[in-house]
């Protein structure tokens, strides 16, 4: 069993082989799934905590503030302290609320993001499951979250929540189109929906550089649409603090509120990972086709570093949007999608198909 931070394939395969040699196939599968589940769960919690801290620091930086700096050095333990606070808070039950739906909603939201994270390649060989239709799977699964949001708003017996949920429904259903179509542009270029193949295809240049202007347009549209899909500012109409107090999660308290909160950050992480994987090469180092020496130097930087660096870059962009722009109005939001992004996207796909057909890409 060899372990290398450049290539996890032999490590993961040897674990797999070890399990199958010592157990019956059924139990090996169970053990494997448990291990992966635990790893993803821990990863999920850690990334969530880190992102909350990062957002606080980034937002403080944008707003001339210091941000959390009391609990632990530079305030890094602040989010953990807040987590415990939320865990210990009372869960308030609302009169005349639909109890079953009310309790189920946060779990639907969190399960949707949980499922999406399992299909993302973190490094070579560090990949829970490599579907043939990876992108399709991630889009399908991540859009399940809206069901939870709608249920939360519907079952809370609160008009603000209901308005927030309805806005969120209209918003996610519309922007799902743009997310799908902008990814489709890259699928035309890559010729596959499999994440590992997409990353491998960017060995001599990331798709954002390979695909000329159409890829760049698709990247920008993906950034806008995915920010909208995760309900973050300037598209945070579902929460819209100044209008709807807290939107769909107004009535939630304690750990159930924390679930919504965590899911928001994880959705941000997921869309940033997809953007990093599909447009910026995922864990693939920065390569330029033909420059052997340069590529070799770049290979010394571990893939995990590349992956998290790119994801952090996209996340920072999304935070930058949130803390700079005012919020859109619901009709402007839908106008932006249906009248601008969607037509641009459709033309862009044609353009990309033409570029690929003529072989103009690098």
């Amino acid at each position, binding site marked *: 069993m060899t372990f290398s931070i450049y290539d996890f394939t032999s490590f993961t395969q040897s674990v797999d082989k070890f399990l199958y040699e010592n157990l019956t196939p059924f139990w090996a599968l169970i053990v494997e799934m448990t291990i992966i589940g635990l790893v993803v769960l821990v990863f999920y919690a850690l990334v969530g905590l880190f992102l909350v801290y990062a957002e606080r620091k980034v937002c403080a930086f944008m707003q001339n503030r210091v941000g959390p700096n009391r609990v632990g050095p530079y305030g890094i333990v602040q989010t953990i302290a807040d987590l415990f606070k939320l865990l210990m808070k009372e869960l308030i039950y609302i009169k005349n609320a639909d109890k079953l739906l009310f309790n189920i909603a946060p779990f639907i939201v969190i399960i949707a993001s949980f499922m999406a994270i399992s299909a993302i390649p973190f490094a070579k060989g560090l990949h829970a499951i490599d579907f043939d239709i990876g992108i399709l799977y991630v889009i399908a699964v991540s859009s399940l979250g809206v069901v939870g949001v709608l249920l939360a708003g519907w079952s809370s017996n609160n008009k603000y929540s209901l308005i927030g949920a309805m806005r969120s429904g209209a918003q996610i259903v519309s922007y799902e189109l743009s997310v799908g179509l902008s990814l489709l542009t890259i699928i035309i270029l890559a010729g596959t929906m499999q994440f590992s193949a997409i990353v491998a295809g960017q060995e001599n240049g990331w798709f954002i550089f390979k695909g000329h202007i159409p890829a760049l347009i698709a990247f920008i549209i993906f950034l806008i649409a995915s920010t909208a899909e995760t309900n973050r500012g300037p598209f945070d109409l579902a929460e819209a603090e100044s209008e709807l107090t807290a939107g769909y999660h107004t009535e939630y308290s304690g750990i159930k509120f924390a679930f919504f909160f965590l899911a928001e950050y994880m959705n941000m992480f997921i869309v940033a990972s997809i953007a990093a994987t599909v447009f910026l090469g995922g864990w693939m180092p920065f390569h330029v086709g033909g420059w052997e020496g340069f590529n070799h130097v770049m290979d010394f930087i571990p893939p995990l570093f590349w992956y998290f660096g790119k994801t952090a870059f996209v996340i920072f962009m999304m935070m930058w949007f949130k803390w700079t722009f*005012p919020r859109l109005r619901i009709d402007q939001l839908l106008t932006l999608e249906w009248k601008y992004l969607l037509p641009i996207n459709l033309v862009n796909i044609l353009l990309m198909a033409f570029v690929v057909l003529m072989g103009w890409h690098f």
Partner: protein
Amino acid sequence: MKEVINLPVKNIEEEEYHINMGPQHPSTHGVLRLVVSLQGEIVKNLKPHCGYIHRGIEKMCEKNTYPQIIHLTDRLDYLSAHINNHAVCLLVEKALEIEVPERIKYIRTIIDELNRIASHQLWWCSFGMDLGGLTCFFYGLRDREHILDIFEESFGSRLLHSYYTPGGLIQDVHPNFQKRVKDFIKYFRKKIKDYDDILTGNIIMQERTKGIGLLTKEDAISYGVTGPSGRGSGFSCDVRKHHPYSMYSNVEFNEILFHEGDTFARYMVRMHEMRESMKIIEQLIDNIPAGDYTAKMKAVLKLPVGEYFQRVEAARGEFGVYVVSDGNKTPYRMKFRSPNFSNLSALDHISREGKIADLVAIGGSLDYVIPDIDR
């Protein structure tokens, strides 16, 4: 044969429902309750319910002497506390026919304008936040802090100053006052460009405010909408121009008028007013004459029998004080004409047929301070 019963079919899309915005709501800027009838997201009509912070200040005034009343006027529109104080002081001085020294007029005008800038800065913060741009809040507060520091140095308090007394000031300004005000003007001239960069020029902000909440000049006059909100509709109502008091007749400044009457016009009026206020301060700050900080006053002030009225231009509009005196040391009746109450009355008219988000933006542009409405 079965009888067919025709039940009235309700068209859900045309049904209205009510939501209570407030008394606790992030965008009502205090304890104001708006009962909003909505059809989907569209505001059909709106009823403001006032009185959650009613303290009976007008009645309390009847039990207090004139120098004591000053402290109560701070608590009306707490963001333009100095200007409210000024109105009462001017009224008492007018009634007693006291000529205050030039120095006091200069200092009062400068501090009024600083107060106006501070108030507009806080309005800018909260307007940005109403639109969802949270960063604005910290930009505005950062700069407002400089003004509050100047205030704190000269008279020891940051929000409710009660610095003016009938006939003068409670104490002289701090020796650093002139230097710090000049430093602030220099600093804020640079920083106000940030305001334009982050909010005024933003396309989302312009889309959200242009053409929203239209208030015509006629409506502004009939609702009594004054101040920046009225001037955004082209209603020339600046008391500093039309009925000058203190030093306003001696300084050069423009009355900012916009004729669009929408939320963006009201926004732009305030942005320009901050610059005009700086212009006024610059003209006065170097020429403050030496002298006493108060005129000679009697120990007990008794206004002659009669009715008196004095108005000033507060940060949110025309602030009027009306006093009926029966010759005692306390007024027989005192009435405040608070700008926010009249401005709020136009809210229902201009936010109909808009979205909830528009209502929040319009409310932000009218810039109401609730204690001033309820008194």
